[in-house]
């Protein structure tokens, strides 16, 4: 922190401190619950809005950046994780949250998800899964069930859904939780755990689209969610986690599925050259002068 402008701000923030523009989602949209949980988690963790960045892709869910009062980066569709990678590595002192939809994350952005997970990028990724493309008015999504009928799949979707939980686990996510917009309390705890966790954490959240998905409704989810805690699931047990994410009984595990420790990308040898947390706004002019000798030595290697 070479720049004086990074002054500490007061702590003890409340829910309201993370409110920004009023959300313009449809009344009843699942995303309200997710936003609420994010705001509660931020307040309870006492995140510093000036040192937190929320990175989103494009979708109804992606619009959350405008409603959540931290620094925000609303990138292009499907590329929230790459943008977040640049942000986190350039300034590891920042808390980086990433949010978006099932299409954004598991459709167009699927490759980045796997690559971010295997790198154990230290961000918290909250996917608001409504099993449809909300913003473009209800087409099939990668998590839609086979046979799902939409205007682009009038005979039903021919594709088996992307198994986002199992893929993320295999890909190397070190924190994996499933939340539900209808259970803000548990979702808040999952998000808090994810932010505290150092490494790639995915909070896959069931967040119904009340306008375009008349199948996967709040009650549809309620009927299928199983409480992992009640089931006595041990999230540190990889085999048990694998078992949960490959369930064939049609139930959706709800809660913390998996957690493990592995050095995150920004602590890997060579990635940051040993710097703990260099601020992005490093005083380059100063470095240029103070390390001129090193720079010239490098130059003279070419002589």
């Amino acid at each position: 922190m070479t720049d004086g402008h990074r002054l500490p701000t007061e702590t003890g923030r409340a829910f309201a401190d993370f409110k920004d523009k009023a959300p313009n989602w449809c009344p009843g949209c699942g995303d309200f619950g997710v936003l609420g949980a994010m705001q509660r988690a931020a307040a309870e963790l006492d995140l510093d809005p000036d040192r937190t960045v929320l990175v989103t892709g494009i979708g109804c869910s992606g619009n959350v950046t405008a409603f959540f009062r931290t620094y925000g980066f609303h990138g292009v569709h499907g590329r929230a994780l790459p943008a977040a990678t640049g942000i986190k590595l350039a300034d590891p002192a920042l808390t980086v949250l990433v949010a978006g939809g099932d299409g954004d994350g598991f459709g167009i952005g699927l490759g980045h998800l796997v690559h971010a997970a295997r790198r154990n990028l230290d961000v918290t990724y909250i996917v608001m899964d409504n099993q449809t493309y909300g913003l473009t008015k209800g087409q099939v999504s990668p998590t839609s069930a086979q046979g799902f009928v939409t205007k682009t799949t009038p005979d039903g979707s021919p594709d088996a859904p992307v198994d986002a939980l199992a893929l993320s686990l295999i890909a190397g996510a070190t924190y994996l939780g499933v939340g539900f917009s209808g259970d803000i309390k548990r979702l808040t705890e999952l998000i808090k755990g994810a932010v505290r966790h150092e490494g790639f954490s995915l909070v896959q959240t069931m967040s119904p689209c009340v306008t375009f998905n008349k199948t996967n409704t709040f009650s549809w989810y309620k009927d299928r969610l199983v409480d992992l805690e009640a089931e006595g699931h041990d999230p540190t047990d990889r085999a048990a986690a694998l078992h949960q994410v490959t369930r064939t009984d049609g139930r959706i595990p709800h809660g913390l599925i998996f957690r493990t420790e592995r050095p995150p990308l920004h602590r890997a040898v060579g990635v940051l050259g040993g710097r703990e947390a260099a601020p992005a706004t490093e005083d380059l002019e100063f470095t240029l002068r103070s390390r001129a000798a090193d720079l010239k030595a490098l130059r003279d290697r070419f002589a």
Partner: protein
Amino acid sequence: MGRFEASPVSVRRTVHERSSGVRIPAPDERGGSSSWRIGGLAGEGIDTAGDLLAKAHVRAGRHVWVTRHFPSRIRGGLTTCTVRVAGHPVAAPSGVVDVLVALHADGADPVKQSLRPGGILLYDESAVTPPDGPTDHEWVALDATGMAKALGEPRARNTIMLGASARILGLDMTVLEDVVVERFGKKRDEGRLSEVAEKNLAALKEGFDGVADVSPPPRPLPPETPRQGDLFLSANEAFAYGALVAGCRFYAGYPITPATTIMEYLAATLPRFGGVCLQVEDEIAAANMAIGAGFTGARAMTATSGPGLSLMAEAMGLAGSTETPVVIVDCMRPGPSTGMPTKTGQEDLSFLLHGGHGEVPHVVLAVEDLASAFTTAIDAFNLAEHYQCAVYVALDLALSMGKGDTPPFDVDGVVLDRGKRFARVGATEGAGAPETGEGYARYRETADAIPLRAVPGDVGGRHYANSTEHDERGYTTEVPATRVAMVDRRNRKLGDIDTLHQGLIFEGDKDAPLGIIAFGSPVPVIREALALARPQGVAGELCVMRRLLPLPRAELDAFFDRHERVLVVEGNSTAQLLSHLRAHCPEAHRAESLLKYDGDPFRVDEVLAAVMRPSEVTA
């Protein structure tokens, strides 16, 4: 008529058309420079031999330009390395070779390898069989394979040939020994040599002793004018080094020829300065990561070639909409599509100018030689942060992979322009009270249209960077007047770039009838062609375009005004630079076009043929 739709008043010429019958001599044939080429299979140490010879020349105070020629496959194809040496700075191949060294039969075709009549062909007699009967060339045999085996270092065939070349060229062996020792072992005065260095020194000597003096030498070596600390490197290396000096602290990239060496250089150096260099899953990720890093205030970059650049088209708009500084380097190779990965061309210009969808104010710079590679890196980062936009830098394979000498870069003279930063400016610029943040608006109008930039961590600078059209605080808007104001401000903000950055470099004779416009690797070739044309009574002025966008309109108009004949030289088939000029300067419609698009760099004689009208050549 195809896509090239020339105006009727102008002349389009490609170097590929049949020649007019007038023979234009290659520059070496006029003296003052000379070319040596080694050819063999990849893995036979071709590039190493070339680099060592070139470095020895540079140490001795001569100028060099080294070009590599290799197929887009790993082994089995013929690879050549050509060292052109001169008494004046050069950055272009001659097109004609005086001494050819063949480690493999494929490299021993004097015609294919452009060996001049009377030139010397030094060959490994275990690999090459010379033709029966008399030839135009002097064939010199050496049993490099046998000698190398005898030395217990079968891979030292290249070094043996180097020693023999030194004798043939009349080169001082001590400098060559120095560079061989540096390459293979400890510095001489630092004690014992490594075994491989010892063996290569022996190989050098064996080669030297293995051939006879050639007198007179094939072409006298240019005079030595020793200079202190001259560097020998590629434009990619010069640019990557410049980026490091400029404070680049984040690089994400994906391998692609001929850009990869930029990433390789930064991977080795960035971490030592607290920076990050990451090879990532694809170019889409690379560009978005660099933009993310730029958003935090880091100087960030990625480099690629055509196919990767295409994948970055969407990110171009993201940088534009969020007004995030980022540097994107395009090391051009011919397209379309995968195209010719190991060849050179200047075909991405239109794409760089027009970017992805929508309208995105950005800057396009070009590098034309080693010195400008370094300074352009500094300029690129400064302009990106000053104007809060993407800066594209065009190189081409001839520069990216060619190597030459250049005076040491002036690190002390580098000045950084970090742009308008909230953290520094605070409450000025109508930004309100930075303490509370309530008054700050990231995209608010300012006198020069450049908004005040805050980055995460700036207390009170909180805002929302948005790929969707937004109001001054970043919130999505559809209000027509706000939209128009945003577009107008973004379009306006680069308006004063001519005061900050010299976009055109003028060289030569302002009063001559002839003016030439070019950018990139053709520039040094044109420089040399003009130098050769002058004694023949044809003078010209060269306009080097260091900045292609925003176009330095006024200066270009003046250039057209002062020249009766203007020639635009570029490495593509549709005259993209000329079209760009025509779109903005009415006078450009009378310009002539010289094009080349076969994958090889322009040659001096090709440019000379276009510079000298046939009547002038015979004159």
